């Protein structure tokens, strides 16, 4: 059960391997990797600058993890989120969940990324060949987290 907020990249294979080996009762490991996607902005993307709120970020991610552990039977849980300047195709975020059977791991992983997208204080600045533009929040993301019955952020 851990949360890391860092500028450096992470090693997905090593994280999944460590999670799977941490507990003989694990039958299912689900992961989500978020990547810097090109094509979202109108012009070709040069870089993505990820700003965050140190301190509050960790608190929010730890709260999300605690909520997931309360809701599902998890044998393991990991959230790693990067900040700083990233290039197209770079990894941004990793969420890993582990459980005896797959239902818990899938639900918890999806819950965590839905929560993170709408609660964790990160902001994306897209630098394209045309301009620098703050990414706007997606209404779908708020709808997704509302589907879990999570209290709205005012």
């Amino acid at each position, binding site marked *: 059960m851990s949360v890391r907020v860092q500028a450096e990249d992470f090693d997905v294979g090593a994280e999944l391997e460590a999670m799977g080996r941490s507990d003989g009762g694990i039958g299912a490991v689900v992961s989500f990797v*978020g990547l810097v996607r090109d094509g979202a902005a109108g012009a070709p993307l040069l870089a993505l600058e*990820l*700003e*965050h*709120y140190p*301190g*509050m970020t960790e*608190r929010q991610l730890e709260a999300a993890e605690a909520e997931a552990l309360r809701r599902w039977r998890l044998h393991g849980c990991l959230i790693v*989120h990067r900040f700083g300047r990233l290039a197209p195709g770079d990894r*941004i*975020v990793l969420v890993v969940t582990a459980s005896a059977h797959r239902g818990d791991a899938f639900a918890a992983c999806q819950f965590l*990324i839905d929560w*993170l*997208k*709408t*609660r*964790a*204080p*990160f*902001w*994306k*600045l897209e630098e394209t060949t045309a301009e620098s533009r*703050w*990414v*706007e*929040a*997606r209404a779908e993301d708020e709808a997704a987290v509302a589907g879990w019955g999570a209290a709205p*952020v*005012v």
Partner: protein
Amino acid sequence: MKLLYFAWLRTRIGVAGEDLPRPPEVCDVASLLAWLGTRGPGYAAALSDPALVRVAVNQVYARADHPVVDTDEVALFPPVTGG
């Protein structure tokens, strides 16, 4: 009060944060935002659409009626877009 601004709220206001003495009329989040909006055109522009302003008091999301005291760290930012 310690104030922190993030993303386009930071760029519009022009600073990442500041320490400001709390005026007597500021007692909660709503009165803080109203007062900040009078501090200049950058503040007014940043706070013009309340639907786009999120507030955290001491790193926890706070509603308009949440109290604000001298020792608080209050952060203002737009809807988050991580992940």
